């Protein structure tokens, strides 16, 4: 009997000791002075004066941070989908240091595995502002989180400014933003007199399940900003699934295939998708089906290369108004100016999928 009690007592003792030892509060690191930054969700976040390591959860932002920083050295972790997009992109060439960056801390969607994250020892994490539980989780682990918002040109620019402040690269950030503004102003001033009837009808195809972009999407923004009309504009959401009959009813003149899916223009032009007949649609009859380019990153969502996207679109929509530049020159100029990189003509043609 007694030994039974002794064993139980021993087990309880071990459990208590285990708990105490395992749960030591994190030793107060000798942090250099910190500063307070207000992120896009209005939160005041304390971050170290010098940022050495950043973990980036949002997919396009790895390339944006690279662009603002001029190097990928400070990026300690990125989203697996961003890594996938990197393969074969210009980012692969410009930033080979990103190849070894960890993606293990993302565990599905935009959720974060806190322990993996801690292993990376980031000074700060960038996360979407709507992932509130994730943000709380990371803060509880003692890692400062900067939240950014998604979806509009304004958010993109605020985000760039914020990251510029974070990394001490305010000058570069404002240069990028100035490029965005100049491009947008240039394009909108030239199309402001274009009449509605002259605006081509465009359709954004997100995937084979006929998902498209509604009025509130960034895709809608870039269509309208470059003088086209989004046929799906009466759908108020960001994105929605439609059926083939609706697409036939809309009869778009241009189709843009998202770079997020694997579809290629040939799949639409040659009717390779079962159960869908695209042959009667204007865009197919006139061979105006385009795959959205991928430079540093996909050109669909708001990113550093958005001005290039706008210029590309403007030329497609109104070649008569925007015939004074060549996309090849513009793209080469962009990479030279911001990354001091001489991109080859072949690579540019590959990015823009120039039709032979």
């Amino acid at each position, binding site marked *: 009997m007694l030994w039974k009690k002794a064993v139980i007592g021993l087990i309880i003792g071990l459990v208590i000791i285990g708990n105490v030892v395992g749960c030591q509060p994190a030793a107060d690191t000798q942090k250099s002075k910190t500063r307070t930054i207000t992120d896009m969700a209005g939160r005041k976040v304390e971050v170290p004066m010098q940022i050495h390591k950043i973990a980036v959860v949002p997919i396009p932002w790895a390339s944006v941070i690279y662009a603002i920083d001029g190097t990928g050295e400070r990026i300690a972790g990125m989203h697996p989908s961003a890594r996938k997009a990197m393969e074969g992109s210009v980012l692969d060439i410009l930033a080979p240091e990103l190849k070894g960056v960890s993606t293990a801390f993302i565990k*599905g969607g935009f959720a974060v595995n806190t322990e993996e994250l801690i292993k990376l020892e980031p000074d700060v994490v960038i996360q979407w502002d709507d992932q509130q539980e994730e943000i709380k989780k990371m803060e509880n682990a003692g890692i400062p989180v900067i939240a950014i918002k998604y979806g509009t040109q304004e958010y993109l620019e605020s985000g760039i400014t914020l990251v510029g402040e974070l990394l001490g690269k305010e000058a570069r950030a404002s240069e990028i933003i100035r490029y965005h503004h100049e491009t947008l102003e240039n394009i909108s001033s030239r199309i402001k007199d274009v009449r509605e009837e002259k605006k081509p009808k465009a359709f954004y195809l997100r995937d084979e*399940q006929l998902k498209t972009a509604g009025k509130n999407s960034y895709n809608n923004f870039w269509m309208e900003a470059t003088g086209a009309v989004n046929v799906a504009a009466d759908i108020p959401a960001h994105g*929605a699934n439609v059926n083939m009959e*609706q697409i*036939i009813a809309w009869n778009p003149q241009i189709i843009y295939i998202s770079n997020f*899916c694997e579809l290629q223009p040939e799949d639409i032009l040659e009717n390779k998708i079962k159960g869908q*007949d695209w042959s009667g649609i204007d865009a197919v009859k006139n061979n105006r089906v385009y795959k959205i380019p991928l430079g540093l990153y996909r050109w669909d969502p708001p990113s550093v290369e958005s001005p290039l996207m706008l210029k590309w679109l403007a030329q497609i929509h109104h070649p008569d108004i925007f015939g004074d530049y060549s996309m090849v020159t513009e793209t080469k100029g962009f990479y030279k100016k911001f990354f001091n990189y001489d991109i080859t003509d072949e690579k540019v043609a590959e990015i823009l999928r120039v039709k032979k």
Partner: protein
Amino acid sequence: MDAIVKKSSKRKWFFLLVLLLLVFFLSLFVGRYSISPIDVWRILLSPIFAQQPGEFAIEKSVIIGIRLPRTLLTMLVGAGLSISGAAFQGLFRNPLVSPDILGVSAGAGFGAVLGILLIGVTPVISLFALPFGVMSVVLACLLGKIRNATPVLSLVLAGIVVSSVFSALISLIKYAADPYDKLPAIIYWLMGSFTKASYDDLKLVTLPVLTGITVLLLIRWRINVLSLGDEEAHSLGVNPGRLRWLIIAAVTVVTASAVTVAGIIGWVGLVIPHMGRMIVGVDHKALLPATVVIGATFLTFIDIVARTATAAEIPIGILTAIIGAPFFAFLLKKTKGGWL
């Protein structure tokens, strides 16, 4: 008395069949792409009245290529799911049973979702859905095969277990999927939709579904006998054990096929049998054929709404609940639950 009863039931059948025909034609006439009714008739009758080649090319593509296969498919799936629900409610002697109870929807759903994750949204995922659907039912049957006084109850419990496991596996796959690419495709697929209805889909499922429906129709009076209990059934010359497996097999084939082409559509298998009972009574001889007709009509009508009401397509699983539930509540109130 017999003559009066027969006459009123004949009228009911006439009404049901006319309604089905009306909905069938409505489905061909209505859609997001406007085609005038006269043009629709001309296209439908085009094998008889020749037309200029190239005339109405787009309209033909819409009516013959999009609306017709979709209508046929919704009628097939609606009929199949409804008769399966009625058969199972008779088999399990429980009006709250749906065809999913043995896990076939969860299993087939898992198979399809796994296919989407590994390959993408292609017709190949049907090859994944069907076997997994069948496998989940086989598992449930093996699990439920306990020699005790209520084999039906143990089957139900086994079905719940298998359903839960496959539902959990579906969640696991959703978790692992790329949030920009695979995950939206998976979620949309799970909500059920006939968007990609095509003749290929019809070729794939018409035979299994029609076979299952025919089998169930042929044995429908024996389901009445089942409700009397196993001993009574034996004394009336019906082997309850064998009958059960036959019903389960037929329902599984029908439901797995339905899930393969349309995703998981709830409510139909549960509620249409009740509507049937309200109209023709609880005798399975009349009930099962009635559910075939009512189910086909109901699902086709809902699909018309799903693809026409707004520019964006509404997942049909959502609509069957939103439209079906209030309508069912209305009928419940009106007949004061007289058939229950």
